[in-house]
Structure formats: C-alpha cells, structure tokens
C-alpha cells in the first residue's frame, strides 16, 4: 500500500561498511567541544594549565634560585631586579611563587585525588549496598570526622616523618569523610531513579550498576566539592607547614609564604599579596574549570 500509512516497520538494515565509516564524534572530542564552548571553562583551563606549566618549568621560568638568600634584599621592596620583592631572609618572592606552585598545586591536587579516590568508592559502596555495610561505614566515617585534623596530621608526620607528601596524605585523609558522606547521599538519590532499575533488569551486577550507571550521575556534586577542597587543601598545607609538617623550609609553598608574611604585614605587604593572589587565582581557575567540566560531562547541557 502506498500513501501515508506504511506497513513496514523500520529502515532496512544498513550495509556493514556504514558501521565503520559513520561514527558520531568520539566521546572525548565531543567533550572537548562542549568544554571549549564555555569561555569561563576555557579561562579556567588556560590558567590551570599555565600554573601547571609554570610549576613544571619552574627551573626555566624562575629568575632566581628560590632558596638563594641575599642579605641585601631582606624584605626588599619590589624592584626591577626583584619585581615581586624579597622575603624575610632576602629570597626572591617571584621565584618562590613560581616554585611554590609545585607544593601548593601538588597539595591541592594530590590530597583531593586521595580524598576522592578513597571517599568515592567507599561512599558508593555505603550508598548502594545499604544495610549493615552502610551502617558500619557510616559509623567509622562519623568517628573519623570527629578526629581533629591536626592530630591526624601530627600523628602521620610522626609516623612517616614530616614532609610535603605526608601533609598531602593527612589533608587528603581528613577530607575523605566528607566525600564519603556526599557520595553516599548522592548515590542514594540516584539509586532511586528508574534507569537504575532498568539497568538491573538487563542483569547488571551491582558493582557495574554502581560504577557505570550511578557514578557518572553523581559527578557534578563531587566535582563541586573537589574544586572546593582544592582550595581548602592549599590553605591547610599552610597551617601544616607552619607546624613543620608540610613543605620543609627553605622550599617554598604559597601557603607557607603567606603564613610567614603575616608577621611583616606592615613592613613588607608584598610578601603577602603575591602568594595570596596566587592562591586566589588558582582556586578560581580550578572552580571555573570544575564548572566547565561538570557542564561538559553532562550530555543534557546544551547551552
């Protein structure tokens, strides 16, 4: 029968050649495209990239050795030779900012990575498994949350020796419980959605449901928290290094620089301004990038 009502269901099977030739743009490419479409995300990406590059190429970028002291430049005001000025023992602030990026970005990223890579799976298990497992995990998390960060950090440093790495570990560990709780809450919300039931109905084992179906849907909240935690970690490294538990002197970190600078607020404000600004810029950039990533990872976001 001709006309509007066509009895035959569907299109004819495609030639096999088509399958290989026509592909939607790859996942990564699509993701990249979406990311690129957001100016703020691009700014975030560029700044984060630049900071990372600066940290990686510190040897090339920094005008001076960040630990070289110059008694003539003690708390020296910014000048042509030292555009960001000199610090409390006459080191070049600019060079220390450049090198400090290593410790500070490292502290931010490593501890967040640690917190996420511990907190996320644990939260997933707690949220999805429920029952006794959940109860046990949550009791432990609550207990850990009650342990002051400082004790954890000192104990860890005492156990493993004080170093930047161990500070990152301590910061990461203490941020973990937050991620556990957050993940769990999100998982419980997503697990109630119908598509999870649909996933069960094709015979997905629980682990696969958790990883493939739930995990991608809780990424936004985790991303927000992760970018916020980066900031908190950079600041936390400062207080740890003040106690000798973080970056070991004379190696620089932004937080430590800021920490020392407070004693010279009046006489050498530049000692504070530059590290402070660096932290702000990094935090802002990570958050912009986080927002961008979140949007780009969300296929529903079309604007």
């Amino acid at each position, binding site marked *: 029968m*001709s*006309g*509007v*009502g*066509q*009895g*035959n269901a569907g299109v004819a099977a495609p030639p096999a050649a088509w399958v290989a030739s026509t592909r939607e743009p790859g996942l990564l490419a699509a993701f990249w495209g979406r990311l690129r479409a957001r100016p703020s995300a691009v700014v975030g990406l560029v700044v984060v990239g630049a900071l990372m590059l600066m940290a990686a190429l510190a040897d090339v970028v920094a005008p001076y050795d960040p630990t070289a002291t110059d008694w003539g430049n003690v708390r020296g005001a910014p000048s042509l030779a030292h555009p960001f000025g000199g610090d409390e023992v006459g080191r070049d602030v600019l060079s220390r900012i450049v090198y400090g990026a290593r410790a500070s970005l490292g502290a931010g990223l490593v501890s967040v990575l640690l917190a996420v890579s511990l907190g996320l799976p644990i939260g997933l298990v707690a949220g999805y498994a429920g029952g006794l497992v959940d109860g046990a995990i949550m009791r432990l998390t609550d207990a850990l949350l009650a342990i002051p960060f400082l004790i954890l950090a000192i104990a860890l440093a005492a156990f493993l020796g004080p170093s930047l790495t161990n500070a990152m570990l301590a910061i990461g560990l203490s941020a973990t419980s937050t991620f556990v709780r957050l993940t769990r809450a999100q998982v419980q919300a997503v697990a109630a959605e119908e598509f999870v039931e649909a996933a069960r109905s094709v015979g997905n084992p629980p682990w696969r449901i958790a990883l493939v179906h739930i995990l991608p849907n809780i990424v936004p909240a985790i991303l927000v928290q992760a970018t916020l935690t980066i900031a908190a970690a950079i600041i936390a490294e400062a207080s740890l290094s003040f106690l000798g538990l973080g970056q070991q002197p004379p190696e620089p970190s932004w937080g430590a620089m800021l920490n020392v600078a407070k004693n010279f607020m009046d006489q050498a404000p530049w000692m504070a301004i530059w590290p402070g600004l660096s932290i702000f810029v990094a935090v802002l950039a990570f958050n912009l990038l986080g927002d961008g990533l979140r949007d780009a990872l969300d296929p529903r976001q*079309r*604007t």
Partner: protein
Amino acid sequence: MTGSTTRPPLLDVSDLAVSFDTEGGAVHAVNGVSYTLAEGETLGIVGESGSGKSVHVLAMLGLIPRPPGRVTRGKVWFGGRDLLALPERDLRRVRGGEIGFVFQDPMSSLNPGMSVAAQIVEPLRIHLGLDQRAARARARDLLDLVRIPNTKGRLDQYPHEFSGGQRQRVMIAIGLACRPKLLIADEATTALDVTVQAEIVALVQELRREIGMAIIWITHDLGVVAGISDTVQVMYAGRILERGPVDALFRDPRNAYTLGLLRSLPDLSRGRAGRKRLQQIDGAPPDMRTPPPGDPFAPRNAYATPRCRAEMPPLSQAPGAAPGHLVAAWYDLPALLTREAAQQGHTP
C-alpha cells in the same frame, strides 16, 4: 476566524515563533503559529510529539526557560493586551488567575516539598486575595470537585502520598482554582486510567458550561479530542497543518498528516482475529535546527508534490470543506484519496 461571532476573540495568537539556543544551533520549536479562540470555546490540539504543542502555550505565558528559550516573534492578544509585551508583574496576574494551567507530568509538576493544600491555596491567595482560612476551605471544595475522596484528611498530605491519577486531579484543581477564563490543559489525562479520565473530562465539561471557560486541550488521545473539542488543530514541526470544527476534521481530513494520525488507530470492528496491522507513519520528524524550506511533513508524505518540498503552504480555507476548516497543503487530499481508491479497485 472560527464561527461567526462578532465579539472579539478571547485569545488571538498571531505568528508566534519560539526557538531554543543549543550547541548545534537554534532549534526552531515553534515556527509562526496563528489562531484565535472564542470565549467558551474548546480547542483540541493534537500532533506529533515534539511538534511544539507544549512550547507554544508555555511561550504565551512567558514560561519557557530563558535561556535557552526565546520568543522570536509574534503577538498573543488576551483580554485586549499583548501577553508577550506585558511586564512580568502584570503577566503574573494573568497566570493562574485568568489563565489556568494543567501540566503534562503530574509526577514532577507538583512540588514534592509542599503539602497539597499549600499548593492549591496559593493561586487563591494570590489572585483572589482570600485569607488562609477561606482559601483552605476553597481548596477542600476544589478537591471534592475533582473527586478526590476523603478530602479532609488529604489536604495536608504531600504529593508523593497521592497516586498518579490523584496527583493529576490535584493539578487540575490548581488550574481551576481561580475559575479562569481560559484553561490550558497539557496532556492532563495522559497518565490516568480511562475511568478517571472520563470523570475528569466530564468535570471539565461541566465547569466549562458553568463558568463559560474556554479550554485549550492538548492530548494524544483522539478519543478525548473527539469528545471534548469544538475545534481541533493539528500541529507538526512547530506549525499548524490543519484546523477545523471537530466533526469536519475527523470526517474529512485535508492534510496527509492528520489522515495518518487517524489511520494509525487500531480498528476493532472486526475483533482481534480479524485485525489488520496498524498503519504507521514512517520516518522521523525533521531536525528543527534546520527546518526544511517547504512543508515539514513532505519528506514522510507519499502525496507530497515538488512544490511541497520547496515552499511552505499557507494555512487557508480548504476548498469544498466546512467553513472554518483550514489546511496547509498544496495537494488536494480528497481528490488524491479517491484516485488511489479507484486504482486499487474499491472505494475508501
């Protein structure tokens, strides 16, 4: 255009167009929709899913999400004002007051965090200025009206404690709360079983007679449309393809898409054993980011002429049809059907 009344129409939509900005370009969801609605008239709107039925009514009241949505052109006259030009403040007075709205999805359209009473009371307080007690009493009456049993105990319950059908009835109660001049019901009965649906249809009919309310009823259920409407309008790809008095349109469809819709209904006259395969419309609607220049249905239409593919036909009085029966088509469907039947050797 409809009927012969000299009074100005209640609603006059002219050349309304809405688009959404998306990554792949603007989606032209509504492409110049014009029609009028008289006081007390019931207009049924059917059409392809995604054809802009919901979007165009939302646009009238400034309810499309903006961004990404954008009303690109058009005017919507209601009670002597152009709703699209009205400041938000004044528009708020129209919404829920003079125009009541019932949304498609009762699951998500009710606020899960507010008691049912609070949600029904709201428009009463905003538009009628009732105090809390009076509004609550009215809310109870409304729940009675939409046949929710045991209204007293249920007022302070939350949406999730209601069944889907009951939730839909709550939505309808909200839409009717202020006795609007116009009720827009967007698939108000889709999720309901037929008995409840029948009750609601009857209820709306009653109210319509009682308060002389006009209705725009959007649905996929041709049976409901047949029962409730004075006028029916068929939409496709953001346009109106056909519009006419309900009997004329069902009896004598002039657009191939309308015909396709009517034909896809199961024919039960011969019982299950004698049933025929359902007729379906093959193909997919056009990509609205790049709407075709001509008749959007042409690619799926076996009767399409070359002109159909090139040029959009205007919506105009169908030749030889009932007055007010408008169609947008370059072809003459009855003629084609007759020819086809002749070729196959029997009359349709």
